């Protein structure tokens, strides 16, 4: 395999797109935003293709996609993500996307509220406060392994609650 210069062919790239799109959709929860993210990601992959090691394109594209998404989140954070209804945007399209967001955030708050107390604590420390596992373990006076297993359980419980809530939510489709 040629390791000095890697070029990505269109067919290789196209083969990755369905999985990449699904990944982007899960991150953004919205068709338009997912399509934009995939687009940004593909552009970046093509621009940076000299950095590709030629090993596993799918893995690399997914890494790039994650990074592009993180950058977008950071950018949005600087601009301020509207979680509040007060500054509702103009167009119909963005209103519905916006309301979807609002409903989703409400779901997150509700489902989080139903978690056992210990799950809430470990998620707050790691996911919200951004502590390293080592730090969280120190504060909780528990081994790191315990933090890892508590976190893994807490996240899957939250995911299950959210999934249930999402499937229930689709039945009450409100068109605006």
């Amino acid at each position, binding site marked *: 395999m040629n390791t000095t210069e890697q070029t990505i062919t269109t067919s290789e790239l196209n083969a990755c797109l369905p999985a990449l799109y*699904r*990944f982007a959709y*899960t991150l953004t929860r919205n068709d338009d935003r997912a399509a934009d993210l995939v687009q940004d990601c593909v552009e970046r992959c093509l621009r940076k293709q000299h950095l590709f090691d030629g090993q596993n394109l799918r893995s690399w594209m997914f890494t790039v996609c994650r990074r592009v998404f993180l950058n977008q989140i950071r950018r949005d954070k600087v601009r301020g993500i509207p979680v509040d209804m007060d500054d509702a945007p103009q167009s119909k399209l963005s209103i519905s996307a916006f309301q979807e967001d609002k409903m989703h955030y409400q779901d997150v708050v509700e489902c989080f509220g139903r978690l056992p107390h210990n799950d809430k*604590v470990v998620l707050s420390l790691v996911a919200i406060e951004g502590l390293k596992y080592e730090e969280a373990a120190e504060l909780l006076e528990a081994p790191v392994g315990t933090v890892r297993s508590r976190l893994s359980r807490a996240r899957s419980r939250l*995911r299950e609650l959210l999934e249930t809530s999402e499937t229930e939510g689709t039945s009450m489709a409100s068109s605006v």
Partner: protein
Amino acid sequence: MANKVHLITEQDVHAYIDGELSGERRIAVERFLAERDLPLERAARYLRNNFDLRAVKDEIYKDEELKAEIDRLLAKRRPKSIAAPA
């Protein structure tokens, strides 16, 4: 160690999402996820959940019992990364 086989566990995926992994281990988890649709989708959801939880932090901390405990735990931290004064 070129052909080292990595056994990727559920906990590795979480560690990856939380930025706890580096080097070879991180690459191994990325490869693992890239090849598997369901774990990849789950990882994306967990990653998303991290952002969502941060976005609704204020709402979550309305739970006074939780807020008190988090404050108590954070107060035990050694004073190295206290928020910068305004």
